[in-house]
């Protein structure tokens, strides 16, 4: 029996604005087991961060309208009192943010900020909490944690700050850890260290992890499942192997082509996805991706008029696309061949 920790069903988060209704998240469903990692991938404005803030209940105080279900360990969070969600926040579910410098308070020491998270959910004294903070700093790989705990965020390097953020998130042994672009603000060399750290800690704590990123490379190694979002909707959802090996949505094809890979020998040129992400107020009719999709003309006009439903493209692997299975296989094969030919041609040119 799967050990489901988080079950999200038909989640919608809308923001009424003076310009119209912003459908930041529009019908997202996924589930996550303990010890598993879900990668949520999408461009800026695809609704991936709003999804995570919705799960954490951090949309309170904004005018967000949230419907659907978020079940954490069987407990419904949509419609739960802000007080209850606050109790769970930081204890049962925790979050790591993108920019560790601006996410840490400049006026308090690192140790105090970590201890604060522990103090609010545990009946302990300040000394115990401070000692706990030092332990955590040591566990996330900060040398001399006892003296570094008294430093302020500006005295830490970028990677150290993100480690401190992780220590803060782990202070109450959360069962769910959401990392929102945890490596975007960091140097490339530090990125791998932070991802390794998240991976190690997940093995140690057996917690469920959601990694939100626009970088497929980040989630490729870590994730068990991958959810590709586009314009607040699900484009593709499946296991990491399926999504990488047999991507079912032209948008995912585009993401893969625009991703640099060093594990493959071919010197493939990066292909950007044409166009820009759509406005979330005037989402294109039908499939939101159709203005940017080169295959939208092959669906008999359905891409322009009909919102595609998620369908199984292989067992347990869903994609929201009007292309038939045959079309999809044909186009994908053509695309891969095209890319290979192009790169071979370039290589031959280079040799000649």
């Amino acid at each position: 029996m799967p050990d489901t920790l988080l079950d999200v069903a038909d989640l919608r988060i809308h923001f009424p604005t003076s310009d119209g209704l912003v459908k930041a998240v529009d019908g997202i469903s996924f589930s996550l087991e303990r010890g598993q990692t879900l990668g949520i991938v999408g461009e800026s404005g695809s609704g991936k961060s709003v999804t995570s803030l919705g799960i954490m209940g951090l949309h309170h105080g904004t005018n967000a309208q949230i419907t659907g279900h978020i079940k954490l360990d069987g407990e419904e969070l949509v419609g739960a009192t802000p007080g209850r969600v606050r109790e769970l926040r930081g204890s049962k579910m925790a979050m790591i943010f993108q920019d560790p410098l601006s996410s840490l308070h400049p006026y308090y020491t690192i140790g105090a900020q970590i201890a604060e998270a522990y103090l609010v959910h545990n009946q302990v004294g300040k000394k115990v909490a401070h000692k706990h903070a030092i332990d955590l700093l040591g566990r996330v790989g900060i040398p001399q944690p006892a003296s570094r705990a008294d430093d302020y965020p500006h005295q830490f390097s970028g990677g150290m700050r993100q480690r401190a953020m992780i220590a803060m998130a782990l202070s109450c042994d959360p069962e769910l850890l959401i990392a929102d672009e945890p490596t975007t603000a960091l140097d490339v060399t530090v990125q791998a260290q932070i991802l390794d750290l998240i991976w190690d800690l997940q093995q140690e704590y057996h917690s469920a992890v959601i990694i939100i990123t626009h970088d497929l490379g980040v989630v490729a190694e870590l994730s068990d499942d991958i959810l590709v979002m586009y314009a607040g909707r699900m484009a593709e959802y499946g296991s990491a192997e399926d999504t990488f090996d047999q991507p079912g949505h032209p948008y995912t094809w585009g993401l893969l082509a625009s991703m640099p890979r060093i594990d493959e020998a071919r010197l493939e040129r990066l292909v950007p996805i044409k166009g820009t992400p759509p406005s979330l107020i005037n989402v294109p009719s039908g499939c939101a991706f159709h203005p940017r999709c080169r295959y939208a003309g092959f669906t008999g006009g359905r891409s322009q008029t009909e919102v595609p439903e998620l369908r199984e493209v292989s067992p347990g692997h869903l994609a929201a696309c009007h292309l038939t299975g045959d079309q999809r296989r044909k186009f994908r094969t053509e695309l891969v061949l095209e890319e290979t030919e192009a790169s071979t041609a370039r290589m031959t040119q280079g040799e000649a």
Partner: protein
Amino acid sequence: MTARAPAPHPVITFIVRRLIATVFLLIVVSMITFAIFFLLPRLAGQTTRGLASQYIGRNPTPAAVHAIEQQLGLDAPLPVQYGRFLRGIVLGEHFNAGTSKAYCPPPCFGYSFKNQQPVWPMMVSGLPVTISLAAGAAILWLVGGVAIGVISALRRGTLFDRFSMGVALAGVSLPIFFTGLIALELFSYKWPIFPNVQFVPFTQNPLLWARNLVLPWIVLAFLYAALYARLTRAGMLETMSEDYIRTARAKGLPERTVIFKHGLRAALTPIVTIFGMDIGLLLGGAILTEVTFSLHGLGLFTVEAIQNQDLPEILGVTLLAAFFIVIANLVVDVLYAVVDPRVRR
């Protein structure tokens, strides 16, 4: 990081460094002030003779003017006069005031020949009035302004926010001689809740001291509270949208802790600076308030000195005001180092 060497606390080193700099700054300020009042008139064509003749009655004889010139030391070169002035501050000075000799004990900021007294004791006698006025008003406006600013920021767009910001706009725009006179008319004459506003020393009767200062406090605080409410509101709106506020919420902190410990703490930092400067400025004399309520503090003293063209008095009060501002600046900088760890080095 390696173990820290046993050095003095960074805040202490910071304070010592700033204190030394402050002494030099004050000397420069005194030079500039002295130059303004003694050098500029000369450049503008004022002779020492003309200056001296101000101290004699009508139709002075040249001999009498010359005598005054010598008595006041006006014939000496300016650097010498400045040196005497500095020496007087430290050691005191003897003055030849016409028929009698006057001793001006240190700190001697000059001798007012028009009032026949040394300047310093006159300034000092005005100080309690100004300090009482500034301190009471400061507490009122700081508490009131910040509280209204915080509530307005958290309830942005509500009736409370719009109303208080409207009142704040009025507070910033209305001059004190207007609000002060209205307050006097209403609460001192029409409904004599605070009749007969005049300064009573705190040591003499604390209750009467407070009662008589309530109107000036409110009038002065109204102006500043309006300013501070707007500043605090803007600062809170900015900080509450910072990433670290989201982090604080993500930790599961109660909203009150998020607002006060994380939000207000950061929003208050710029307020500290402005508060220090405003206090420093006010200690040099709350001129409009003191004139409106006839409170004999430094402000009224300044106005009278200017009306009488009493140079030593003007020089003294200018220096004292500059001193307050420089000290306030120092206190603000030190406070900043205490409040904001990023300032310490």
